[in-house]
């Protein structure tokens, strides 16, 4: 009951202080508002981008190892001249890897090329041609929303069919159903049997919407599967419960055996995984997070001094009121809690303003940049917690000084 009375009185005092001294209060709260805005907006941005990155990595397969000629990341003393002579993975090695690997659940071979897709007078330039073996759908997460995936016989016989991304479908068949229609790619006629669900560009550069999936056995007619230009890759997905490191260990042995490398010879292949790319982006997020923290941290600290200042003034203005309260029997803690609650209230109002600004900002960013930005519950809790705590820390000294006043001297002051 006492707490509720205190809360009500403090709230009224805070509102009264805000209304009576609008400009002073606004300027004092501005520091907290800017601080909360800076910190929470950076956290909101990085959280949203990290969620998008996680989705991208998941769609590429976070438990998939890519056997390639070139590694995705390089150290400072990267001997590129040694890598030049490496052989590219070939489709016959796919069968051997499948035969010897015990920890791999699914295996696929893929080469990528660029090409212009044409249908009647429409064309989409620079489409990504993904020439894949049958099990590709078990390694990558995607959804065929219209039509179907290749059948095993279509894949093995190399039928002239394809599955197209959403952007390709919109570009070539505006308003028409693409399934069953023939498109031309690199001079070859392909029948569309499916359309992929729209996903947008991923954080790590791949965009399923601009891709055309073609069976690898048909792709032999279009591209040279042994050419370094088309970046041949063997994809291996681990069984559930098998870590990427365990699979990498096994694949290293398997690939060395397939290529008959001597024990002292270096590996002539690279085993890549998506975490290598997401790790680099995560490092960038960490830097952004630290920058936001430093800028916001100092804003909040300055805002805290503003709140402390306004509370010192508030105590000074109401000194005789404190005297009357104490002479009527109010305890020290009552006066202390009264002013402390007022400081917390003021600070939380500043924090709420900052959060409202971010909430409005998310709509602007979503519309301008076509990004999914969410002010999460954890960030709202963090923002309100910080504001409440800064209120406690900055309001305690003025509130305590007020509570220690002598009633007689306090009443006499004007």
């Amino acid at each position, binding site marked *: 009951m006492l707490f509720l009375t205190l809360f009500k009185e403090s709230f009224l005092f805070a509102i009264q202080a805000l209304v009576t001294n609008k400009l002073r209060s606004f300027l004092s709260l501005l520091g907290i508002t800017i601080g909360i805005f800076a*910190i929470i907006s950076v*956290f909101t941005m*990085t959280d949203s981008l990290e969620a998008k990155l996680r989705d991208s990595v998941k769609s590429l397969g976070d438990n998939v190892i890519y056997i390639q000629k070139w590694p995705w990341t390089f150290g400072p003393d990267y001997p590129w001249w040694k890598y030049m002579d490496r052989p590219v993975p070939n489709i016959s090695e796919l069968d051997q890897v499948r035969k010897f690997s015990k920890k791999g659940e699914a295996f696929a071979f893929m080469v990528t090329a660029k090409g212009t897709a044409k249908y009647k007078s429409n064309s989409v330039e620079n489409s990504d041609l993904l020439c894949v073996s049958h099990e590709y759908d078990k390694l990558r997460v995607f959804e065929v929303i219209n039509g179907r995936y290749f059948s095993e016989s279509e894949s093995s016989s190399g039928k002239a069919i394809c599955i197209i991304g959403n952007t390709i479908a919109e570009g070539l068949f505006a308003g028409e159903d693409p399934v069953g229609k023939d498109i031309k790619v690199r001079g070859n006629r392909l029948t569309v049997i499916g359309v992929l669900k729209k996903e947008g560009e991923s954080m790590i550069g791949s965009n399923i919407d601009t891709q055309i999936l073609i069976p690898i056995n048909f792709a032999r007619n279009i591209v040279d599967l042994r050419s370094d230009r088309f970046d041949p890759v063997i994809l291996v997905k681990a069984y559930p419960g098998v870590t990427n490191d365990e699979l990498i260990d096994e694949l290293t042995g398997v690939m060395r055996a397939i290529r008959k490398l001597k024990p002292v010879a270096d590996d002539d292949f690279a085993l890549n995984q998506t975490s290598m790319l997401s790790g680099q982006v995560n490092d960038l997020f*960490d830097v952004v*997070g*630290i920058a936001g*923290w430093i800028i*916001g*941290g*100092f804003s*909040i*600290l300055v805002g805290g001094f503003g709140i402390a200042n306004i509370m010192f003034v508030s105590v000074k203005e109401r000194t005789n009121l404190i005297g009357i309260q104490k002479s009527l029997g109010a*305890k*020290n*803690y009552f006066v*202390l809690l009264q002013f402390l609650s007022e400081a917390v209230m003021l600070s939380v109002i500043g924090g709420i303003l900052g959060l409202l600004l971010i909430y409005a900002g998310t709509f602007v960013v979503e519309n301008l940049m076509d990004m999914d930005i969410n002010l999460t*519950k*954890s960030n709202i*809790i*963090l923002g309100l*917690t*910080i504001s409440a*705590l*800064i209120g*406690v*820390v900055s309001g*305690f*000294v003025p509130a*305590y000084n007020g*509570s*220690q006043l002598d009633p007689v001297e306090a009443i006499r002051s004007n």
Partner: protein
Amino acid sequence: MEVTRKRPIILLIICIIGILWSLVNFIMVFSPFIKKISDWTPAIFGIIVALQFISFIGVWHMKRWGPMLYISAFFAKLIFSVFVNDVSYVGIGLGSVFTVFFLIYYRRMDDEL
């Protein structure tokens, strides 16, 4: 008759160091490192830091609730550090030294709020 309680110089130094240290720690509350641990970690860490700050104000005013609050916050922080696996031996050592000095001068302090 009002009793004046003079603050010893060592407590003055400890209070200045402690208040400044609490402000620095307060900035740590909303660091990305703390936030990564869990959603509620910044709130818990923030409450501990705020309690430490308030305890130094208590010691500054030579009030007994200051050392008591400081020791409580010290142990709370210790448990928190063990929980998040970030134990600082310098912090424990410094905290122990502060506690010893607070206890030495505890009798000279006022037991009212």
